[in-house]
């Protein structure tokens, strides 16, 4: 089964801890992160997302970003983060 997590519009300092908890709550499952609403991505939430990607990868599970807007993708790559991580991967349930 897969779990859908919708990310809030502003992923700043305050959003980091809740985001981590939200994603961690579905550990062991395939995760779908809906980033359509995200307007602002900050460094701390980027850390959470990168760590989640690596953690899921280590678990052999799929973690997939869905509804990736241009704005999100450009902020993501502005950080120097790999665009490949945004591409669909694993198997969608």
């Amino acid at each position: 089964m897969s779990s859908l997590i919708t990310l809030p519009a502003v992923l700043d300092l305050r959003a980091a801890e809740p985001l981590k908890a939200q994603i961690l709550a579905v550990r062991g499952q395939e995760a779908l992160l809906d980033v359509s609403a995200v307007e602002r991505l900050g460094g701390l939430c980027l850390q959470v997302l990168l760590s989640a990607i690596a953690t899921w990868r280590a678990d052999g599970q799929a973690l997939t970003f869905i509804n990736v807007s241009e704005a999100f993708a450009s902020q993501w790559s502005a950080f120097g983060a790999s665009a490949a991580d945004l591409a669909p991967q694993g198997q969608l349930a």
Partner: protein
Amino acid sequence: MSDDPFEAIKVTFFQECSELLGDLETNLLALETGEGDIETINAVFRAVHSVKGGAGAFGLEDLVRFAHVFETLMDELRSGRKECDDVTVKTLLRASDVLADHIAAAQGTGAPVDAARSAGLVAELEVLTHGQATPAVAAAPVVADEDDFGFKPLTLDLADFGAPAELPSLDLPALDLPSLDLPDLAAPSAAALTAGWRIVFRPHPRLYASANDVSLLLRELTRLGQTSVELDASGLPSLEALDAEDAHLIWTIVLTGDVTEAAVRDVFDFVEMDCDLSITALDGGSPSAETALPPLPVLDAAPAEPAFDLAALLAQAKAPVEAAPVAAPAPVAAAPKPVAPAAPAPAAPSPVASAPAAAPSAPAAVAPVTIRVDLDRVDRLINVVGELVIQQAMLAQRVMESGLARSSDIALGLEDLELLTRDIQDSVMAIRAQPVKSVFQRMPRLVREVAEMTGKRVRLVTSGEDTEVDKTVVERLAEPITHMLRNAIDHGLESPEEREAAGKPAEGTVRLAALHRSGRIVIEIADDGKGINRPRVRGIAVDRGLIAEDAVLTDDEVDNLIFLPGFSTAETITDVSGRGVGMDVVRRSIQALGGRISISSNPGKGSTFTLSLPLTLAVLDGMVVSAAGQTLVAPLSAIVESLTPRIEDVHYVGGHDAVIRFREEFVPMVDVGRVMGFRDDATTLTGGVVMIVETEAGSRAALLVDAINGQRQVVIKSLETHYRQVDGVSAATILGDGSVALILDIDALVIAGHRKSNRPELKMAS
């Protein structure tokens, strides 16, 4: 203060903005008068840059855009590419006004910014910067559009968490610099340019905690030139082990283009204490030099110990760069490179972070170390110290009542305690004391604007800006001073033509001065205009029924009629001074602070408003006296001398108004018990004591009381807050025996005394 950390930081930002605006104004005015130098220009640049940086962090785009244009011109000035002439300074002054508007609008305290005015100034600034209204695109092709980040996305290889000991060495594709071709596009003098900068940046958790973000810094860098960003996430623990507010990422940015090291450092201006930062020049000819980076030290996967020895890494990385043959030495290469001693424990402040301090060339003034403290905390402290003073007084009284000898150890110890208490109180009060500069600094702008609106030429001369007074008083001074300055220019000064016709210089002068006088702060606003038209003022007062037609008034009394409610002398209501409701409101707000306002005028020569306020609203040195069975406190600052009146020195004017001879002068006597309404009958002089007091206006009076009980420092408790305003009383206090005593308002008391004696002025000619 808000619980929301973001809002709290924003509040701090706006506080800083107001300080920065003050600095800006001061420095621009120094430039205007020719007192400025390169450090002044640098200071202006820094102020604008700081506003811009903070505004960027809060996404205040309008403010950022305006500040950017402003800053660009300042950069031209400080680099010497543009001369700082009179026209430029005048434009900068107006730009600082608009910058203040943008800040006020962003803060929500001001009206929306006048877009046309702002755009007009942007155009003016750009003309000064580039010689034409539109930014010279050809000259700066690498400046990315604000919405186009221009980043080159790079592949990130995340480390496997299972193998902390085997970290991938840094993959550096960024060094295959496509942007090294840039000189072809950009300036022809490629040889003089640096190839760019390699910036290694590792934020600390503090950086995020103070509402900064890497995204903003990266974005700022893209404004400088072409960037390629590489992210090292190898220190990132697994999600479970991750502390979401800790910082684990390291960025390496290669910035290419004609950018000075100072410009790069400026981007990190706000965060340099909150990150590890290394900025090294790229050598266009030998990109391979950079590939000699040693492998990263082994990272510990545990989040508690992100052992990252950036300093050591940099030290090693730098060596090959320096060893490489340098074909075209960049001008900035001479700048001191950050020294990189071995980093101590990761928790300790990084030595790399402090290194940039060595880079700026101009020696900046050493600023005193300060901390920001919530005002509530200071006030709580002041309250508690106030209670301590009261308690100490009560204890002293008990000890005295117990009959202990004055020389006993307890009594002596108590005296020491009193001195100590006093020291504590003075120190605590000093925390709240602030120079009036913060208010005075706002006035040049006001004067410029009012002068423009009224078509008058005005020079503002300020003095005593460093005079300190309680914060509350400072804050409440702004409005009355603003109003009186407007009034002075609008009503006081004549038009340039009128002035010339009267044989005065076309430019009028308004003086704004602050000084300490007899334990109070006095603010004077003086103009060299036409002075008050007394017959007209009098006529209006009669017309409005404010005074009787046959009232006999001194010149001063006529002048002070303008403070009566609803009095307006402006025949046409102007935008500037409003509807004439102001002066009585000004007087009321000053009175509410325990202050007084008066005006003196010299026809044809000008008028002077004098505002007098207590320095603090918390403590007072007072003389405790008794009158008609009541304990009262007279402010010590007003008392000149105390004496026992001799019957032969007292004379009566008109049979009932007593005056006393004091040092060859006759001084009117005020029977305190009677004037205050404690008793109806007149005191007999025998057995009473007289205190000679001096009023604000400098006149003297003799206050007659029953006895003087001693001198004491008292804690002021507002009567208005707990009861209501009482004529002749400025506040109340609690004495050592726990009783409440009223603090006398000397001036009001003397005036009331005159009124009771039904004589407006008592000047004895023996």
